């Protein structure tokens, strides 16, 4: 896979990448208010990176983003998820307890009674876990495609 796709596809992929990533982060951050959540938003963000991998040469892509970066994304997402779950135990609650809900501060706003348009700063630890799952799925799905493409390149060089 030494050649890349045509200039039309490369330019379109460069422009669409920004919008896809911003839309994916929107889905992740509004996971507790609107349809979607960590997995869906992470898959949308990974689609943006996969678009760049398919459109460009692999060496060009690896010049912009390292493989280590995606591994670190996946690792930090898992650590953030289990760390948020375990942080409830030293505070005197049960495992996975939603200790931030209704406490004020980060994601701690109390939801007012009645019909409301949805407030972003609510729901306690659920948005934090959505962000953790989103980062982890982004790293995982991107690195699957990245290693598939690397395997093709190594195979063609070996022939």
């Amino acid at each position, binding site marked *: 896979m030494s050649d890349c796709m045509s200039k039309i596809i490369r330019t379109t992929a460069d422009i669409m990448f920004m919008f896809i990533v911003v839309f994916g982060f929107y889905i992740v951050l509004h996971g507790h208010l609107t349809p979607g959540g960590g997995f869906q938003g992470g*898959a949308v963000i990974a689609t943006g990176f996969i*678009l760049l991998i398919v459109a460009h040469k692999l060496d060009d892509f690896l010049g912009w983003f390292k493989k280590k970066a995606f591994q670190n994304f996946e690792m930090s997402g898992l650590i953030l998820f289990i760390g948020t779950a375990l942080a409830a135990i030293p505070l005197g609650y049960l495992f996975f307890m939603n200790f931030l809900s209704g406490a004020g501060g980060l994601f701690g706003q109390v939801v007012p009674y009645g019909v409301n348009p949805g407030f972003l700063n609510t729901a306690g630890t659920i948005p934090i876990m959505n962000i953790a799952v989103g980062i982890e799925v982004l790293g995982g799905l991107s690195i699957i*495609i990245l290693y*598939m493409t690397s395997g*093709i390149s190594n195979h063609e060089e070996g022939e």
Partner: protein
Amino acid sequence: MIELIHILVLFGLIITAALIVWQKDLIAAAVTFAAFSFLLSIEFYILQAPDVAIAEAAVGAGVSTAIFIIAIRATHNQEVT
């Protein structure tokens, strides 16, 4: 109105599913599969499952199409008779 869109989406699903099999070009078949997946996500949205619709649009139309295109690039085009 929603029934008309629903019927159109269902017919589009059948037509694209038949086209996937009938295509001779593999890249065209992969893109047709992406169109099928997109229509399927619209169908999920009409059936009031927006969560599944987003997952289907991201994984079905995005990731699996990229996997097919990478696999087609890695192989040689040879007609088997």
